[in-house]
Every structure is written in structure tokens, then in C-alpha cells.
């Protein structure tokens, strides 16, 4: 099962549950506050996902750093490799 199918399956499940509860084709009646919560619930999920992604982008932006130690190590390794190749007679 691909990731797309998983997502579609979950979305279909949630959508069916929401439609069953909110539109009430079975003729049942939820108490009014529950109906009022349920009606805009998909929009609420969407807004929550949007907030999460916005916060993630902001947090990663604020804590973005460059890896000094790793850069140093990489430069060392490049130097070593150059020396090694030069010793074997490779001209740059």
C-alpha cells in the first residue's frame, strides 16, 4: 500500500465519519453544542495543520545553523585525499 493510498484511506474514513455524524442521514440528533462543534470540524483540522506547518517553518528558520565542526572535518578529509592522490602521482 503506497503512502498516497494510506492517506486517501484515512481521509475517506474521517470524511465518512464526519458526514455520518454531521449530516445525520440515520435520523439521529446530537445535542446542539456538539453539532456546532462538528459542523466546522474539517476546517478546524485544516487550520490546525496549517498552524503546525507554519510553526515548523518558523522554528526551523529560527534555529537554522551551519555545522562548523563538520565543515572543518570535511576540509581535513579533502586535504588528506589530495595529499594521497598527489603521492600516487596524480597532477591537479
Amino acid at each position, binding site marked *: 500500500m503506497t503512502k498516497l493510498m494510506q492517506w486517501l484511506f484515512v481521509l475517506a474514513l474521517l470524511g465518512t465519519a464526519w458526514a455520518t455524524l454531521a449530516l445525520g442521514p440515520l435520523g439521529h440528533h446530537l445535542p*446542539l*453544542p*456538539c453539532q*456546532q*462543534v462538528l459542523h*466546522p*470540524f474539517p*476546517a*478546524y483540522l*485544516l*487550520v*490546525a495543520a*496549517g*498552524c*503546525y506547518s*507554519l*510553526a515548523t*517553518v*518558523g*522554528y*526551523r*528558520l*529560527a*534555529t*537554522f*545553523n*551551519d555545522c562548523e565542526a563538520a565543515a572543518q572535518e570535511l576540509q581535513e578529509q579533502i586535504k588528506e585525499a589530495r595529499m594521497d592522490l598527489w603521492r600516487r602521482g596524480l597532477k591537479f
Partner: protein
Amino acid sequence: MATVMDQLVGFGLVAFSLILFVYYTIWIIILPFIDSDHGIHKLFLPREYSVTIPVIAGLFLVLFVGVFVMTVMWKNRKPAKKSD
């Protein structure tokens, strides 16, 4: 390294999204369970707007992204090939 400006913008985004999430959660999830004559209802718009405002905001977002992509592609377009 993230500059001070980057950190400001980043944590500003985090704060904005947190405030938005809390406000929207109270508006959508908690408010229906509070008596309608309570004073807290004055702080929120009527419930009809709770879906239309996000939808309109989303439309504006899509519009903005579309315009942005269009301008970038327009600026980077290759000069037209000479006709052969």
C-alpha cells in the same frame, strides 16, 4: 548561522501560529459549550465566519503562490529560440 533577523522572523511565525491555533480552538471547540449570554462571546466573530474566513484566506494564499511562481518563471524564462 541564523541571523537576529531570521530568529525574529522565525519565532514571530511560531508565535503567530500558536496564537492563531489557540484562538481558533477556543472559537470552534470550546465556545459552543459556553452559555450564549456569557461575555466571552463578545470577543469572537459570529460562528458563520468560522469556515468562510479560512476558505478566503486559503484562496488568497493559493493566489499569492500562483502569482509568485508566475513572476519567478517569467523572470527566469529563457530567451526564445531563434526560428530555424
